């Protein structure tokens, strides 16, 4: 079985404004199976978003190979959905136009695109807001627009960069459940970045832990919690606590390293 995503020995360097070279990722290996829901945790600045950038094809790696659906990535591949860390809905488009953008770019007729967009807008619970502009929505509503905007294209690979981190706890677990429902109805492979280990465990089939920057994969854990899951309840299972403890021991060291480094950098 060819993996949905495979990164082999990937290194990514950036030129800093002062002319130096900054290594964001170093010799990173990662494999995601078809249909798998992977969560990635790691300290801030360790290169999580950079990793998604490489998978999406927006950025080329400096070294190593990136393969998506069995093909080497060279530019933006088909079948990718990407929910960005920062707001990326188009401020000059209404909710409807935002969600309809993908199908339109991919050659659907205007009418067809709008029809499908309406369907997705109601699936993410935004019916009645079709004609609003993003500035007239709350942060959580904008995230839902972004989600619908990605999912409407039926991506085979869905990349999500801390999509729910700005939401309150209740809305968040509602949307997490929603996402799991949508995902299980599709055959998409998901890479879900979060800095919340609880979220990672309750959503994922597998949790990757990254080291402090320059980031590389430290370890990965198969999460054998049964599906379908209810994220609001699953965290109270005893087995959840066991898994949490095991991964947290791993993650904590990296968070500490990163924290110490930043403190020293600031001093």
């Amino acid at each position, binding site marked *: 079985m060819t993996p949905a995503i495979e990164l082999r020995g990937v290194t990514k360097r950036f030129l800093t404004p002062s002319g130096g070279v900054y290594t964001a990722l170093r010799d990173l290996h990662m494999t995601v199976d078809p249909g798998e829901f992977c969560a990635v945790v790691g300290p801030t600045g360790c290169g999580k978003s950079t990793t998604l950038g490489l998978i*999406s094809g927006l950025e080329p790696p400096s070294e190593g190979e990136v393969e998506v659906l069995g093909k080497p990535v060279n530019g933006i591949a088909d079948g*990718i959905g990407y929910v960005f860390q*920062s707001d*990326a*809905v*188009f*401020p*000059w488009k209404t909710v409807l136009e935002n969600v309809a*953008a993908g199908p339109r770019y991919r050659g659907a007729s205007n009418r067809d695109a709008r029809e499908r967009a309406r369907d997705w807008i109601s699936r993410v619970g935004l019916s009645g807001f079709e004609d609003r502009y993003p500035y007239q929505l709350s942060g959580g509503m904008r995230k839902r627009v972004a989600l619908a905007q990605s999912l409407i294209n039926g991506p085979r690979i869905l990349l999500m960069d801390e999509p729910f981190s700005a939401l309150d706890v209740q809305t968040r677990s509602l949307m997490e459940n929603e996402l799991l429902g949508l995902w299980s109805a599709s055959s998409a492979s998901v890479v879900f970045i979060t800095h919340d280990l609880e979220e990672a465990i309750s959503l994922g089939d597998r949790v990757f832990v990254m080291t402090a920057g320059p980031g590389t994969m430290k370890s990965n854990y198969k999460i054998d919690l049964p599906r379908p899951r209810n994220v609001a309840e699953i965290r109270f299972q005893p087995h959840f606590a066991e898994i949490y403890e095991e991964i947290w021991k791993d993650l904590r060291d990296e968070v500490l390293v990163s924290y110490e480094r930043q403190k020293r950098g600031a001093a």
Partner: protein
Amino acid sequence: MSRPQEQAARPVVDLAARRRQQARRRQVSVQLLRLAVAVIVLGGWELGARSGVIDKFFWSQPSDIATTLWHWVKDGTDLGPLWDQVLTTLEETVGGFVVGSILGVVLGVILGRNRLLSDVMGPYIKAANAIPRVVVGALFAISLGLDIRSKIATAAVLVFFVVFFNAFQGVREVDRNLVANARILGADGRRLTTEVIIPSALSWIIASLHTSFGLALVGAVVGELFGATAGVGELIYSAKNNFDAAGVFAGMALLAAMALVAEALITALEDRLIRWRPPVATETRI
């Protein structure tokens, strides 16, 4: 038992009503103060001229200017009916404005999208921009003749640079996240330009249109000064030759009126095109 509830509800209603009332009152006082400024300036001018503090010969006086304007409206100007002069200048201005804006937007977007081209052309454009541009009016008067084309060309040159630099900057300032998102969603190069780059640059471009209509007017009038048979600029020019200060001021008043009407039209256009932007407080707008 219902009392406390009533009391809780009332302040909210009162507050909203009071806010509205305050806003209305403010609006009225702004209008009154505006009127007061006009009365003081024009009245002071008139009084100064009548009492001899201000030399009427050079600086005229509001009543003379009004008389001249009325005379122009009623009997026409030395160059023909007033309406024809206004229309001539308007045609030149709008022509230059349209040509200059379109060229500015198109070239601004092209150079903004193409780094090599902008690196190559950058110094030349900066050099061209550094020249006092009204002098090209003289060049156009020679090369294009004294008809409308030389005025449109002069106005277009003035407009072009302002719009060009704004469009260019607007394209450069595009949020990279939005570009990335559009590419992921499947936008090709053309779609990227029309659906992301241009809308995003539009607020910059439209901001420049406010200034550039005024510049188009300058271009048209300067063009007329270099030689014309009609137009408000020519009207001013011939008034100047007759040492008719009131005529010069009357011409200026006409230009100001044209600029104000255009400004209102551009603001309306802006509100239509940039509906997606959170509304700015109208009071901050002058």
